[in-house]
């Protein structure tokens, strides 16, 4: 597994567990302060984490894919070189 995928998986697990705890909180804390906390803190925290995960996904598909392409090119060059003439 590449580093991008590992970080995406770890962040997703972390966020999933956070959301689970937020649901427990929300089921047991019901007053105007709870709404205020959810709106001003939890929503922001969740959105920032989701944005981060999305950024990591984009990096995986962009940076990670291009690096993989360069690795494949190097492998292919090594393979081709075996058949190329030497002076």
């Amino acid at each position, binding site marked *: 597994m590449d*580093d991008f995928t590992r970080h995406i998986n770890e962040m997703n697990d972390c966020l999933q567990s956070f959301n689970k705890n937020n649901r427990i909180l929300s089921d047991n804390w019901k007053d105007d302060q709870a709404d205020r906390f959810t709106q001003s803190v939890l929503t922001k925290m969740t959105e920032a984490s989701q944005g981060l995960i999305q950024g990591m996904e984009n990096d995986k598909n962009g*940076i990670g894919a291009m690096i993989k392409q360069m690795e494949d090119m*190097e492998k292919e060059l090594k393979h081709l070189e075996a058949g190329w*003439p030497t*002076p």
Partner: protein
Amino acid sequence: MGEDINVRSIKLLESYHKTFTGFSSTVQHKINSYLAVLENSAEHAKQLKYRIHSFAERRKSYLNKAKVKMAAAAAEQPINPIHIAVAMKRLEGCKEAYKTAKQYDEQCDEMIKKIRILIEQSKQQSIKYRTEISLTAESGNTFLNSYISKLQSYSGQNG
């Protein structure tokens, strides 16, 4: 009855507070570790580019040597058609190999430019999220601390 609710709420919020603090600190730690991944990716891409460029440089040097050998074969007296044919074949092979290696090298040039831009953008964005998460965590902690204290003081008054 009111007291029970307060005690339950305090326990709930204290327990949740730990989860909240743990989450924000884990995410910030993960962002730092992710920034290191980006740095490593930039270095890895640089090394790949260097090695692929070295391939192209090596093939260029082989091509030059093949050209010298071709010239030497052509200058031989008396002319030896076998030497010329061998040198010609090698020269053509070296030309083709250099052309391919150069194409790969040029493609890598384009890719590494894009990779550098994307890595820089991603670093900036990750730092932005880290700041946002840190500020939100701070505000959340203040909120929870203050609310728990308030409940504790009610609970104390009633008790």
